[in-house]
């Protein structure tokens, strides 16, 4: 991968940019893997890859929903709050058993998604403003429901968080299935195509008779449900419901993964494989810096550099 970059460099700049936009994120992941294998002790072990995958799984799940929303030229800032809400609702209803608790979580998430979608599709509030309202309000509700961290000892929940099938943790399996499902929805369903058309040109989509509002609402509901899944999984892994801190800044991690993965913020395009790779890239970057015990501020700086690079590479494509 690194060699491929070198070969393209002598060619004209536009093509390099185009290449970076499409494959840069994979090249970045490959580069980090190579560097880590070379310099990080104990990196090349199944245990390590498992850890990285488990840690990134919730981010990937949230980023999938975020990618859909960004595909409609929107953004959802409330995903972190939905995770917190999912955490507190799980704790509150776990007494009935895991499944009923999950159903109630889904109801709460769907309500948040509906509110986001309705504000965007019917009231015409800008997505960033509409979801900001739910970002603040959602976490508020989460903290009202459960004001402080609570330990959970439900065995089914615990096994959801740390169990595995043939050595592959449930978290990784769930994230993989959801990624495939979302990719399928985007590529093969009417809904997916309509979503892209709306994101690319909403006036044209409206005049073509597409159910613009319905699609928008479904997208925000889907995003909230995915965030809720991530919230439940993170809670299961922690074996504690922590609405005060769970999902903090998750919206930014998810947006970063989506953008780094080559999905333009201008809508009309959704790159699911890239989004997954974007999340993995940030995870590996963070892991590298932590493993080498570099100051935490370095992590933030490195993330910023990756984002700037991604946006720079996307710039050329934005003008069509």
């Amino acid at each position, binding site marked *: 991968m690194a060699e491929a970059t070198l070969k393209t460099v002598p060619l004209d700049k536009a093509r390099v940019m185009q290449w970076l936009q499409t494959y840069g994120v994979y090249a970045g992941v490959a580069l980090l893997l190579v560097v880590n294998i070379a310099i*990080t*002790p*104990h*990196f090349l*072990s199944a*245990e*390590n890859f498992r*850890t990285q995958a488990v*840690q990134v799984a919730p981010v990937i799940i949230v980023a999938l929903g975020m990618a859909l929303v960004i595909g409609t030229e929107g953004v959802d800032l409330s995903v972190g709050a939905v995770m917190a809400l999912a955490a507190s*609702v799980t*704790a*509150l*209803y*776990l*007494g*009935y058993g895991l499944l009923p608790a999950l159903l109630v979580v889904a*109801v*709460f998430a769907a*309500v*948040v998604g*509906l*509110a986001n979608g*309705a*504000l965007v599709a*019917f*009231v*015409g509030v800008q997505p960033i403003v509409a979801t900001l309202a739910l970002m603040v309000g959602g976490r508020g*509700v989460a*903290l*009202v*429901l459960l*004001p*402080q*961290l*609570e*330990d*959970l*000892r*439900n065995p089914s929940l615990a096994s959801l968080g*740390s169990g595995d099938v043939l050595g592959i943790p449930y978290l990784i399996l769930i994230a993989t299935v959801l990624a495939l499902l979302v990719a399928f929805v985007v590529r093969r369903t009417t809904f997916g195509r309509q979503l892209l058309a709306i994101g690319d040109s909403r006036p044209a989509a409206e005049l073509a008779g597409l159910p613009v509002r319905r699609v928008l609402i479904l997208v925000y509901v889907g995003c909230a449900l995915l965030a809720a899944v991530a919230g439940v999984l*993170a809670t299961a*892994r*922690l*074996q*504690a419901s*922590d609405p*005060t*801190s*769970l999902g*903090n800044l998750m919206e930014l991690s998810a947006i970063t993964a989506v953008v780094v993965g080559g999905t333009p913020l201008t809508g009309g395009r959704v790159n699911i494989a890239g989004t997954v790779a974007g999340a993995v890239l940030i995870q590996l970057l963070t*892991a590298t810096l*932590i*493993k*080498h*015990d570099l100051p*935490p*501020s370095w992590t933030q700086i490195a993330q910023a550099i990756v984002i700037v690079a991604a946006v720079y590479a996307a710039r050329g494509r934005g003008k069509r």
Partner: protein
Amino acid sequence: MQRSTHRSHLLARPVVVALAAAVALTASSCAKSEDDAADGKKSPSAAADAGQKVVTPKPGSKTCTIDAYGGEKLDLKGATVGFSQSEKEANPFRIAETQSIKDEAAERGVKLLTANAQSQFSKQISDVQTLLAKGVDLLVIAPLNSDGWDPVLQAAAAKKVPIVTIDRKINATACKDYVSFIASDFVEQGRRAADQMIEATGGKGEVAILLGSAGNNVTTERTKGFKERVAEKAPDLKVVFEQTGDFTREKGQQVTEQLIQSKPGIKGVYAENDEMGLGAVAALKGAGKKAGDVKIITVDGTRNAVQGVVDGWISGVIESNPRFGPLAFQTLDTFTQGKEVAQDIVIQDSAYSADNAEQDLGKAY
């Protein structure tokens, strides 16, 4: 356009109603958490040990009297005391702190007015002003910020209301703008954590620190004390890893997972609060380690962490005592009687180790 706005109202309302209904649903007690069926586990006030708070005056520390401060003597019994809490009582520390103030006030038969600023500094300022307007004779403040207190201090000075601040300091002149400051010594907590770590590891090997949030004085002071003491007493104990866990369990878990993979030989983890320490425990469990494989020392003294000591996963917990009530009221009592009190009062923190954790579990908050 007309049409869409019209519809939007029709739709916006059901959404709001639905949201409210969803919240109400939970509130209406059809929620059922795990603990509803099991024990009512938390009863911090009942567990509180009233005999524990002992002042340790620093030798040569400055003192304050009511004459120097410029107030009038009064009898604490029958006085009204105002208490301004900074953050919502959403974590064990704040819960125990407020409870301790309330319990002590009840014990001494003092009328107590309380307010909570919900982490908004402007609210705390107006809270205190409201308390003053309600005619409190004395004030206990747990400040959210150190700066920006001038208007309140002036108002209090005008009414000659003595102020005691707890757990965080106000940037102002002691014995002029306020009487005393009561808090834990975070550097000392770090030192004591180091002592426990040295004991647990035998003073040899590599250890890691899970730092608190960056730019927080608690983080810096707990780190400083720990490193100083390790350097001084056990030069063979090396701090090889310092990463932030932001005082949360989740980050503590994630960072520890990275740590034990890249440095499998790590002997100990010093977590600067209990939550990160519990996260570290979760990481160790997830990695298939056994209790005691890696020594964990934490600071705070919450019930969950002390339980961890009982279970053997945590080697030691240094307490950061939230029970300011007795000390605060004792200070106010002494002061209003005209006797002298110290300007900086350090609350005594206890510690939990395998030796006392089980019997002292009830003291944890």
